[in-house]
């Protein structure tokens, strides 16, 4: 029937319908801005902030935490940053760098934001950075910073460098664990950065790994890898630990895989081998009873924040936070809160009509940020120079929480990433 010549009429009509169908949304969208060839930045006193929070996919809980932290700062500061009224446009980070880039494009190109904030995952930063830099819009990262980013002139992270978390705990483990440590983590950029940071620092201070040759298909990495993003089952990987003779295990997992890992670790009968991890293993909603729950008890992790960090700033923050939200504040709340605090200072310094360029310049002049995690400042890589804490999952009242048990050595020297991966 397809070949009947007279079918041309309906097709022509359908095409007209199709064209109309196409043109209408495009024209509607075109209201978002003038010609793409004539892009001039906004120049009124209202600051538009573009926030990329994960609203779908694996990072949704982190996105929600970050949005809560950021919005909390705004609502407690009269919806003004640096004296300027603020409009926040949000877009969904999604599951991948692809969706995150689409979100950044919408905020940068369509909403013409002055500042970009967000992303839970470290990976999209690489894709968003060049775009923001070209447009001279500062990007305040609230999630991990991958080691592979090149030009950081417009890129600032209020969070952490991916390699530094593990490096912070390495000396402590080398000192306290009497015997080799088994390293295991996911096979993606975040995993390689996090675990690589730990292993390099650990070896430097004389630590010994329990991993066998061939645990990682990549000969340059010494830790056991599990598939990412979906790890079907950790059991076969964990079954190797006992035979390795390890006296402790160090790991990095976040989100869904972290929940699975903690349960699998306990199920594998490894409870007598102490489990250490980067703090993301037990951060945020992970400790909820329907996620890790009691299985996480006793796990010691390293992170740059915990709700029990001493100090007035943190006490105030926790009180403010819990007045609005029913949960214990976590690192994701804090990095986003700090991003707002940073912008508060920077916008105030950026002149009467702040633009992306002037705000970025102002950020560079800020010497200190008073954060719930303690004061910190930017280092040369535009990431915080900050304190790390050793925390343990304990019952705190009726709920589980990450309790700070000691400060870890400051002035962490993060070794340079491997030249080429």
């Amino acid at each position, binding site marked *: 029937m397809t070949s009947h010549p007279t079918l041309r009429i309906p097709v022509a009509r359908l095409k007209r319908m199709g064209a109309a169908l196409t043109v209408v949304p495009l024209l509607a969208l075109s209201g978002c801005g003038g010609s793409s060839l004539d892009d001039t930045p906004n120049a009124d006193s209202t600051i538009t902030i573009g926030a990329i929070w994960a609203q779908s996919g694996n990072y949704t809980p982190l996105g929600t935490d970050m949005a809560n932290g950021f919005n909390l700062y705004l609502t407690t500061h009269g919806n003004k940053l640096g004296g300027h009224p603020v409009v926040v446009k949000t877009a*969904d980070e999604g599951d991948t760098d692809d969706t995150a880039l689409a979100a950044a494009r919408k905020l940068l*190109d369509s909403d013409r934001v002055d500042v970009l904030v967000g992303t839970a995952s470290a990976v999209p930063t690489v894709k968003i950075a060049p775009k923001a830099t070209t447009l001279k819009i500062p990007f305040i990262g609230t999630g991990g910073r991958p080691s592979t980013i090149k030009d950081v002139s417009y890129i600032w992270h209020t969070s952490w460098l991916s390699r530094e978390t593990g490096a912070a705990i390495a000396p402590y483990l080398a000192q306290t664990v009497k015997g080799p440590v088994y390293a295991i983590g996911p096979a993606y950029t975040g995993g390689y950065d996090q675990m690589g940071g730990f292993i390099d620092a650990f070896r430097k201070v004389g630590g010994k790994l329990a991993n066998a040759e061939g645990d990682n298909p990549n000969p340059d990495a010494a830790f056991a890898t599990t598939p990412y993003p979906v790890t079907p089952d950790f059991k076969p990987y964990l079954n190797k630990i006992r035979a390795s003779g390890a006296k402790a295990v160090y790991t990095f997992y976040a989100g869904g895989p972290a929940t699975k890992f903690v349960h699998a670790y306990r199920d594998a009968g490894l409870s007598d081998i102490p489990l250490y991890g980067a703090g993301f293993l037990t951060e945020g909603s992970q400790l909820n009873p329907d996620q890790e729950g009691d299985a996480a008890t006793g796990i010691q992790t390293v992170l740059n924040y915990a709700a029990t960090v001493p100090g007035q700033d943190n006490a105030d923050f926790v009180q403010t936070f819990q007045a609005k939200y029913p949960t214990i504040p976590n690192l994701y709340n804090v990095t986003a809160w700090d991003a707002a605090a940073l912008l508060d200072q920077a916008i105030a310094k950026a002149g009467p009509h702040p633009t992306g360029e002037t705000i970025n310049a102002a950020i560079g002049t800020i010497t200190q940020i008073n954060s719930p995690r303690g004061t910190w400042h930017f280092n040369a890589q535009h990431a915080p120079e900050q304190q790390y804490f050793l925390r343990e999952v304990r019952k705190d009242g009726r709920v589980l929480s990450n309790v700070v048990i000691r400060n870890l050595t400051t002035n962490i020297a993060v070794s340079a990433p491997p030249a080429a991966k």
Partner: protein
Amino acid sequence: MSTVTAITPDAINAARPPLLQRASANRWRRPRQGVAVAAAGLAVVLPAITGRYVVTLAATAIILALLAMSTQLLAVAALPSFGQTAFLAVGAYTAAHLADAGLTDGLLQLSGATLAAALAGAAVAPVVLRTRGTTFLMVTIMIQGLAAAVALHWTSVTGGDEGVDTPPVTLWPGHPLTEAAYQYWYALAVLAACGAGIGWLMRSRLVLVLRGHAGHEPRMAALGHHPTIGLGLGYTAAAAIAGAGGALLIVVNQHAGPADLGFGTAAAGFAAAALGTCLTGTPTMTGALTAAIAIIALRDATGSNGTGPLYLGLLCLTVPYLRPTVLRLHRHWARRSEPTA
């Protein structure tokens, strides 16, 4: 970007062999041409009347359109494919490696990507073409999964989950294509060229053979058409089209990574072809193109706050039910315009 309606003749049209020209058909030429010219004009001036965001989205829609057309070419042969992203990936990584090697010339990357994808298609075809129907659909989902796993884990070639960053393409030396508008125009030109190529293909003997295989495979074999060769050529051509889309991905994103070729992209490409078929009644390239644009508009533009999957889902859940209506309209119009015999 609707230029393509002008350049991409659809299957309905292609089914008409040249010797069957009818005088009455010319009556319908003019309004159709008018619409096509208007759409083409709008597509060309789009960067002048809208912002960069829409322009970049439109470029993304062009990439999805190529993926959908690749899927649709197989649909013409009654092969429902979910795995054309594999060849999008081959094209994208090939172009990325060419760019890495300093070969930033856009046309060079385009031909390299198309060629590499075609070769990959020719290599995979003998395996997947052992199946038909629902099994073919299941096997192509496997192909998609395998491609995504390779992209994620063959780090030395694909850069793992971070992917490969590339310098901008150039059309003539020393002038990188960085402006969204120029990237879009380049993509549009590539789409126009591909559209012309697909248009030629749809009128070619190959597509006639594909449709023959779709209709009556034993008959085709009894006429001396080897199913694996005919369908294999079709599969290769479809892979090449997806490969061209991969080259454009590098132009627009300056990056190739596993995120661009995961389940989501594959699903969007499959849905665009399937919904396109429903919009026009039979598998047509116009339908695939229109559906690709609609999907991008709904999923990315309107649904940028996490509701994208919802909108795409609703689209998939409604459009298929339009097909009987469309077919009825076709028949109705066909009857009305039937010359009194």
